[in-house]
């Protein structure tokens, strides 16, 4: 079976864009990806896309052109982008089509996400009494983890400081001003132990990727990248998930562990093969826990890795090189694809001031979201 290449990438800057709908940002990203691959919309044979709160992706054909292609809307929470990408991958791998697009975009109102108990299959009282907040889950998960593995608040702040530093070198990021560790630690406590600057915020943005059968890639680009692994998993018994009125006493692994293992197996690669990674950092604690859930270190080793600066741009294993969710915000439908976009930029050697040195050849992405889903990818040169 044929490999799958990524030949075009496009982005609409993340943050807040007044006067532009999420869908229009999606169209912007799609056009940028087409231009990057030096192709026309009429060359695209199929598309998958979605948003969580900004409408149906297939409405983009009104702007891109009525070519009659199958354009499938994807709705899978925080894994919407990852699911679109995986679907596009599978479609090409199966031989059904040769060239397609995966696109994700979103535009959320300010402030924490509103939760709807019924939509999550939960009783009304759970939301009415103030227990159904994503921020609480993040605070409680890292609180326990810090207790078990000796992670300090100082390290939580280092993660956020790194995010803003990296974003200051990324013209497409939202929050591009560096923020000092002390400012982060002393900012308003949102959900203990996490402060305001340690959290990402709902935001806006869009990313589009064009994929094709590997044999065709050199027709469109001199530097194709290859999607070697992509896997998606939902939660196993005993995982600790957002919006859980109760948890199993006997603890189990997170869905990340399964998605990560499956991705490495598919790519026939090991963790040591990976040069840099984008890991879901809804808040500082998530990046720390996801370092080990994805198998890049053992539980507790993050403390030293962070204190030594190993995950900085010039460290041994750079993580969230574009500023991650913390500095880019979280447009749910676009976030997962932003990670892949950043990896493509890095592997092309086109990341400018935030370029990871040493000519990186392999890069990893990981998204995680409600109600316990995770999707990972491995891309190589």
């Amino acid at each position, binding site marked *: 079976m044929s490999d799958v290449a990524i030949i075009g990438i496009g982005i609409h800057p993340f943050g807040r864009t007044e006067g532009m709908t999420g869908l229009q940002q999606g169209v912007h990203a799609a056009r940028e990806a087409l231009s990057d691959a030096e192709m026309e919309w009429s060359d695209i044979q199929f598309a998958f896309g979605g948003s969580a709160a900004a409408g149906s992706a297939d409405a983009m054909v009104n702007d891109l052109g009525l070519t009659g292609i199958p354009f499938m809307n994807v709705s899978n929470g925080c894994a919407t982008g990852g699911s679109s990408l995986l679907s596009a991958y599978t479609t090409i791998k199966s031989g059904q089509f040769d060239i397609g697009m995966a696109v994700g975009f979103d535009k959320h109102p300010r*402030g*924490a996400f*509103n*939760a*709807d*108990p019924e939509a999550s299959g939960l*009783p*009304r*009282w759970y*939301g*009415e*009494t*103030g*227990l*159904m*907040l994503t*921020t*609480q889950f993040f*605070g*409680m*998960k890292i*609180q*326990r983890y810090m*207790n078990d593995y000796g992670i300090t608040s100082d390290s939580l702040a280092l993660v956020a400081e790194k995010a803003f530093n990296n974003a200051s070198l990324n013209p497409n990021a939202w929050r591009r001003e560096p923020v000092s560790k002390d400012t982060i630690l002393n900012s*308003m*406590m*949102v*959900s*203990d*132990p996490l402060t305001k600057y340690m959290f990402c915020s709902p935001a806006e943005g869009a990313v589009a990727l064009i994929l094709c059968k590997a044999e065709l890639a050199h027709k469109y680009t001199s530097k194709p990248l290859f999607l070697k692994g992509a896997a998606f998993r939902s939660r196993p018994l005993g995982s600790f998930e957002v919006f*859980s*009125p*109760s*948890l*199993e*006493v006997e603890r189990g692994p997170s869905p990340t562990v399964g998605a990560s293992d499956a991705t490495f197996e598919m790519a026939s690669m090991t963790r040591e093969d990976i040069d840099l990674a984008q890991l879901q950092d809804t808040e500082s604690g998530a990046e720390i826990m996801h370092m080990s859930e994805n198998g890049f270190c053992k539980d507790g080793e993050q403390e030293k890795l962070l204190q030594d600066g190993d995950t900085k741009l010039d460290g041994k294993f750079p993580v969230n090189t574009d500023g991650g969710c913390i500095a880019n915000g979280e447009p749910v439908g676009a976030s997962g694809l932003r990670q892949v976009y950043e990896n493509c930029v890095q592997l092309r050697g086109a990341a400018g001031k935030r370029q990871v040195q040493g000519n990186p050849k392999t890069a990893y992405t990981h998204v995680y979201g409600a109600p316990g889903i995770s999707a990972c990818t491995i891309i190589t040169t």
Partner: protein
Amino acid sequence: MSNQKPIAENLFTWPSDQPKLLGSRDTETGRYFFPAKKSNTHEQVELSRKGKLWTWTVQRFMPKTPYIGAENPEDFKPYAVGYIELPGEIMVESRLEGVDPEDLKIGMEMELSIDPFVKNEDGEELMMFSFRPCKN
């Protein structure tokens, strides 16, 4: 007492001197569920009143809908939330009352309490469960 009622049915035994949360147990797997699940294989169980704090956080801003607490943004007071491990049964998410956030410690002994949460349109007090540090 007549103008008080639980915020939801089948959530806890009430009124009672020793109220208990109502869960269910899958008779085939032995797993506990809270809130109780309606199924042919589930039997209703009264959960332990006491357990240990497994993790916690503090809700520092006033939640948006569907929150029905009576506070205004001006007088909102942060409240603690945590999971209580009921030994051998299940971990239950709950508000933590009667304790300052600075005094919360993973592993501390906690006990169930039923208290008024908010009044509904008919003037009835809706009763909600929480956990408090055990009185020694």
